[in-house]
């Protein structure tokens, strides 16, 4: 019952306030109700009014009217403290499953100070911050991840009780931001197609770091290529910036292949993820294939990102 009501309310809110990367809070987005303290305050006022009536005490009347008017004034001020605030968000960095995704939220004032603004995903986990006119506030909100794939940012809740805490004004925001979650890397045996050579491969991997691999030739520099392979000598003579290419004998390129692995889907993806990271770290070219996708042998940041992205979003092979 309660859950259904909450869901309906949220749908209604979503219709009123569509998702946007940057919004300015105004009356269509800010909600305000008495806080629990505000309700207790109102009950106290009722008691004081009773005392004023029964003792015919003008000062008690005066007190109750002053405090009651303060409540009205507090409604305006609490609303004002939240409205006009500009909230923006940046696309977050991809993370591995199990890590905390970091969503960036910018809070910026439109000329007035906003105090004690609580920002968070829920009611209980919130940062409280002041937003002053001169400076923009940049907040990092962590969100735990568990499964790979796209993770949409939940509704962001901005709320404040300032100045008196008698009321709570809040706004739900959908930034529309999402974070790509890679599989969680899982250490294990490297599965190559050359199962017979696997021992030698592993020995070779050790040697790779020492740079004793066969020299294959030169290729033009691309961002992401390892600096220690740059052909500095040629460059210093005025030639183009080239990268020395080392390689193994043809046919000995490493290939990470989903189908060559054993185990469940997520386990295989995690294992592949581990090796993508490891090989990329060692600047070693490798081919990569998933059912329905084949990336030829390459190395560099772009290749690594493409592999990880494919791993994160892989849906086939149940």
């Amino acid at each position, binding site marked *: 019952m309660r859950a259904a009501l909450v869901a309906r309310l949220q749908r209604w809110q979503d219709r009123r306030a569509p998702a946007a990367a940057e919004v300015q809070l105004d009356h269509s987005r800010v909600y305000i109700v008495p806080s629990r303290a505000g309700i207790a305050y109102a009950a106290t006022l009722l008691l*004081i009014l009773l005392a004023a009536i029964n003792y015919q005490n003008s*000062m008690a009347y005066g007190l109750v009217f002053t*405090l009651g008017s303060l409540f009205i*004034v507090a409604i305006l001020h609490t609303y004002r403290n939240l409205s006009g605030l500009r909230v923006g968000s940046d696309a977050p960095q991809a993370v591995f499953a199990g890590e905390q995704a970091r969503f960036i939220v910018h809070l910026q004032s439109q000329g007035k100070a906003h*105090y004690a603004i609580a920002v968070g995903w829920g009611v209980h986990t919130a940062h409280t911050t002041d937003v002053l006119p001169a400076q923009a506030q940049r907040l990092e909100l962590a969100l735990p991840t568990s499964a790979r794939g796209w993770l949409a940012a939940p509704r962001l809740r901005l709320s404040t009780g300032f*100045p008196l805490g008698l009321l709570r004004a809040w706004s739900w925001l959908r930034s529309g931001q999402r974070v790509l979650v890679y599989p969680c890397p899982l250490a294990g045996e490297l599965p190559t197609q050359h199962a017979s050579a696997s021992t030698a491969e592993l020995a070779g991997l050790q040697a790779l770091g020492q740079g004793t691999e066969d020299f294959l030739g030169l290729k033009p520099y691309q961002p992401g290529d390892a600096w220690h392979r740059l052909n500095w000598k040629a460059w210093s003579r005025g030639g183009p910036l080239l990268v020395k290419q080392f390689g193994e004998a043809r046919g000995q390129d490493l290939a990470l292949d989903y189908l060559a692995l054993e185990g469940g889907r997520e386990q295989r993806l995690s294992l592949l993820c581990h090796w993508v990271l490891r090989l990329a770290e060692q600047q070693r070219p490798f081919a990569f294939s998933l059912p329905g996708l084949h990336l030829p042998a390459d190395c560099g940041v772009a290749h690594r990102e493409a592999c990880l992205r494919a791993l994160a979003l892989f849906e086939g092979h149940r």
Partner: protein
Amino acid sequence: MNVPRAGLTWLLIGQALLLVPLWWQLPPWLLLFWLVCSAWRIQVYRMRARVPGRGLRTAMVVLAAVAVFFSSGRSFGLETAAALVVAAFLLKLLELNTRRDAWVLLLLGLFCQVVAYLFDASLPWALYSVLPLAALLAAMVGLQGGQGERLGPPLRRAAGLLLQAVPLALLLFVCFPRIAPLWSLPLNSGQARTGLADVVAPGDIATLAQSPELAFRVSFDGPPPARRQLYWRAFTLERFDGRRWQQGGLSRFQAVQPWQPVGEPWRYRVIQEPTDKPWLFALDVARSTAPDVQQTQDYRLQRRRPVDQPLYYSVESWPQVVRDPQLAPALRQQNLQLPATGDPRMRAWASDMARRYPESEALVAAMLQRYHEQDYHYSLRPATLGSDSIDGFFFDTRRGFCAHFAGAMTFALRAAGIPARMVVGYQGGELNPAGNYFTVRQYDAHAWVEYWRQGQGWRSVDPTFAVAPQRIDQGLAEALGADEPFLQGSPFSMLRYRDLAWLNTLRLGWENLNYGWERWVLGYQQAQQSELLLRWFKGWAIWVLPTAGTLTVLLLGLAVLRPWRRQVDRVLRQFLRFERLLGWHGLTRAPGEGPHAFAERAAQQLPGSAQAIHTFAQAYTRQRYAGEAAAPATLAVQLNDVRRSLAGRTGPQRKPLP
């Protein structure tokens, strides 16, 4: 959730301020209790002490409750209730760990303020109470956190909010319907009040004459009567036991005989100080429309409940009305009552007089003549009297105060067979030249005599006037002899220095202020409210609160929110223009797409303008997010570059300009 430092500090300050007016009313050990609790709490905050455990806290609650019970004696009055509320207020300090605790403390504090008002709502304390209120509000602001941890900003903000709340509060104060008490709560404050008592021994009123305390204030509609006509009746004393006078049983509870107004009335308003007694003060013969007030057998005005708060009422008095032309037998008997024995000389003298003057009027005149011509003295220090007090005073010492003269005369009239009684109240008052009102003080307390005559009813006569006419015409200070200084017991009373003109002006100004406060604020209850609203708004009175209330809130909203000064972000406006411009070329920003990503995509799709688009987007991002100074003019120029670079472009994506 911890209690922020600013909130805690203001809470402690507010509590200290709040308790100041209460220390006069509360048992002194509570002060010690407060010091202990505050010191403990501060040490907890400084990490020098631990929060007391549950057992210790329970023990302290029990201790406090027992101490309150014992120090209050047997009666459960306002003092006891106040002591309990304050004890709870203090004990809660030890359990101040979360914001919720702080809120409980705050709300208890508001309640303590009400208790303080019940004890004393005079102008100085009412002004003072703004301080604790502001501190409590500052504590509320401080509890929200924000603004750093400094103490100044919360107080400034609280003061600002308080000021903004004033107009609406004033409106509510004037227009919110005042209603009669829902149920009767005895405000038995237990504290002794100076004033007239039910039982009067001859010396009592003389003691009262030493007190400069305020009794009541009166303002007349139209010219006030002469001073010698101002006999403010409180009640009558009809039973004499040989020493003291007491109220008669009949006159206290029975309703008065109906009477018809005759002649021109005096109309006036009284603001009476609390007396903890039910009677009001009025000139004869009075009628009041105040709620709960009735007139009893002896023509006094009496309220159902004691006057425990300053009371405002309006009265009409018809001095020419004949009271009780026929006297009921029971009443007659009550007003002829004398003790079985005692005062033989007076009895003999009275029967002798009755023989010589068969007309009661002549007898009264003869008695007054004796007071006037023989060696009687008006004095605050009457000699000590033996067992036959009337005889001793009338024939031997001959020094006395009004109650002596009135008592002896009532006795003599009764002994002569004329129904008579003593009336107690106040006589005269000080006319404030600026305010056109009389201030009546305790030293104006007076006693006089009423005797009954067939067909003419009750007639008043004042023996004091025969002895010391200046008392009636000018006041007590002038009537006293040179050896009896006025207000001997209160050396600091400004009334003693009435000869100093500037001091007297100052005193009268202060009195004026207090009068206004009592009349317009403390006395503003049902009667005065309906009177005022009717005078100002006629039949529209009920519309005033909703209309003016809506208007006030509306104005307040405009003043606080200032919709016309909504700051438009000019940097953002340039970006929105940029978006619109690209929109015409078929590019719309996806939800979640940041400005940078959007520009990147646009540059790819519109390679001819890539340079301009990048320049604009980078400048915008720097100004918006990298803390660079906002320069919307530069952005506008760059946006123009984009527009120009797009201008020559024609293509399938181009949509017609709207």
